[in-house]
């Protein structure tokens, strides 16, 4: 009985694969004859040789925005650290001599080991100091320590 079930599942799997194949072929053929359909046939991209363009609203590695003089735009208000659901941002504020700035982050750490790329920090920032538009999405590393980004690395 178990054996029959085993073969049944294999055949079912083949059916699913075949269905995708024929459905995609069908839409590709329609497209070939210039018939516009809502759904399009799937295309496989040969990653990493080929790459699809990232959407403009994508979220990738964070970067810290700079002021005109190269100082970080961040004023260490800690709203990002407050809103962060994975508690991966740590900030220590320090006093800046310039009375127009007053406060700057002496320590600003984003721990990517923990980050879930929700982008809340970007939304919360009142100074537009943090953005997630570097297009760097391949962040895997052999060393956890390399995934802890401090302010110098975020400013790069």
């Amino acid at each position, binding site marked *: 009985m178990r054996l029959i079930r085993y073969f049944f599942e294999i055949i079912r799997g083949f059916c699913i694969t075949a269905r995708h194949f024929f459905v995609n072929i069908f839409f590709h053929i329609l497209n070939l004859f210039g018939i516009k359909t809502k759904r399009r046939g799937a295309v496989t991209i040969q990653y990493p040789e080929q790459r699809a363009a990232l959407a403009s609203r994508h979220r990738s590695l964070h970067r810290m925005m700079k002021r005109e003089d190269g100082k970080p735009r961040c*004023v*260490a*208000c*800690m*709203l990002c*650290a*407050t809103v962060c659901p994975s*508690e*991966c941002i*740590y900030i220590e*504020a*320090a*006093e800046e001599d310039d*009375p*127009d700035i*007053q*406060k700057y982050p002496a320590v600003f*750490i984003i*721990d990517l080991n*923990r980050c879930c790329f929700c982008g809340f920090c970007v939304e919360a920032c*009142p*100074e537009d100091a943090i953005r997630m538009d570097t297009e760097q999405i391949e962040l895997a590393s052999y060393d956890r320590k390399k995934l802890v980004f401090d302010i110098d690395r975020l400013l790069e």
Partner: protein
Amino acid sequence: MKEKPMVKIFIDEKLVEAEEGKTILQAAEAAGIAIPHLCYHDAFEPRGTCRLCLVEIEGIPKLELSCSTTVKEGMKVRTQTDRVREARKGVLEFLLAEHPMDCPICDKAGECKLQDYYEEYGLFESSFAESKTRREKKRDIGKNLIHDQERCILCARCVRFMDEITRTSELGIFERGHECVVDVYDGMLIGNNYSGNLAELCPVGAITDKDFRFKTRTWFLDKGKSVCPLCSRGCNISIEHHKGFARFSLPKRVYRVRSEYNPQINSYWICDKGRYEYSYLDKNRQTTIHAVKNGQPVPMDWEQALDHCATEIKKLIYKNKTSRIAVVLHSWLSNEELFLAKKIFLDDLQAKHIYFSDLPSEEGDDFLLTSERSPNRKGALELGFDVKPFALKNVEDTIDILIVFGAFLIENFNPADIREALTHIPVKILITPQESELNPLMDLVIPSAHIAEKEGSLTNTDGIVQKFSPALVPPGSCHSELEFLSGLGKGIEENFSFYKRLSSGDAVRKKMAEDILFFREKE
């Protein structure tokens, strides 16, 4: 004193009774109706500068200030009509016309009343196209304070505090109209011992603490009520501490101390000593049990340490030599702890050598700060201790066990002298929250908790008994002295069933009230 006649008024259709002479705002607050206000403070005469507490009173064509209008029989007040809300919105727009929108760098953000009221009544787009006037953002006005003149809304709370409470009048309002600014008088700096209250008093972030400046944000802090142990006044304080982050360790737990209202003792105020000298809570904490046997450190846990103390005392009981026990107490211990210490050492063991070692007295002032630097000396006296100060010659003769509470010996004597005086004592036990030079002189060091970390009660210099509960969690293997003493009482087994019942602060307090008239009257 003759009671003032009561007046009946209606606030938002609700019948409210208030004493004659009270203002509408006071009556509303007492009835639980919130009227927004920035300049009004319960401790001062109303000044009516912020214009935010406008209310509609039936029969009066214009809106009135509720902070300075006194109640009258049958008055009908409305606090939430469209007209009132519109007026408040207008007032807020004027207040914010010159207020910089630098909430991200403002230490007040999160507890700022202007922020809260904008959320509640404002939410407008500013109609001022002109740029805001630039003023001094970082003016040093005293040893603990920084004044941001841009953020100031001229409510004059600080000026009134200086005029009415401390009567030192360092602050004034200068210039007129648009140029108006709060500042210190020429060459003066706010140097009095109550300056820290200004930062708490300021409804916006114009006056901020130097100590708290940029350390953290207010919404990260948890509050815990406690009693200030730094002098014998017993001011009510709230200890604000950070619960920490999951992945990052913080340099300290406690970020600031603020006052809690208590009309009997400190009203709304605390002194700068109580406000800024909180670092003892995190600095040099003794968090592990440290035991030495024959010159070698031995690992010990809490139970073993307690057991060790009890065994050493029991040895003396068998030899009938309990008079050879010396105990050094201090007046940072709560009433309950002192009561247990008295029961164990004085009543059960009949030890002759019971001394107190406290911080030396310093100068007090005529407002809150007293000259005694210990919170519970009065309690110790009421409990029946004769509070003999400890002297090194007291332990020169035959002492077999020395039990020292607290590290205050180091404040009174020089470490070399203490070492010499203690060398011949076979068993030396120290129960202290603070690591000090006393540690290497002892055989067993047991970490204990600070007043902010335990429950109990203290008797202040005027004989007011105040209960307190833990505001912080004690670090490491710290246990309160109450736990130590009730454990020791049980461990000695002289009077096991008696101490078994006294394991919580409440139980001890009840027993204490039964035994001692002073505490029975205070219950």
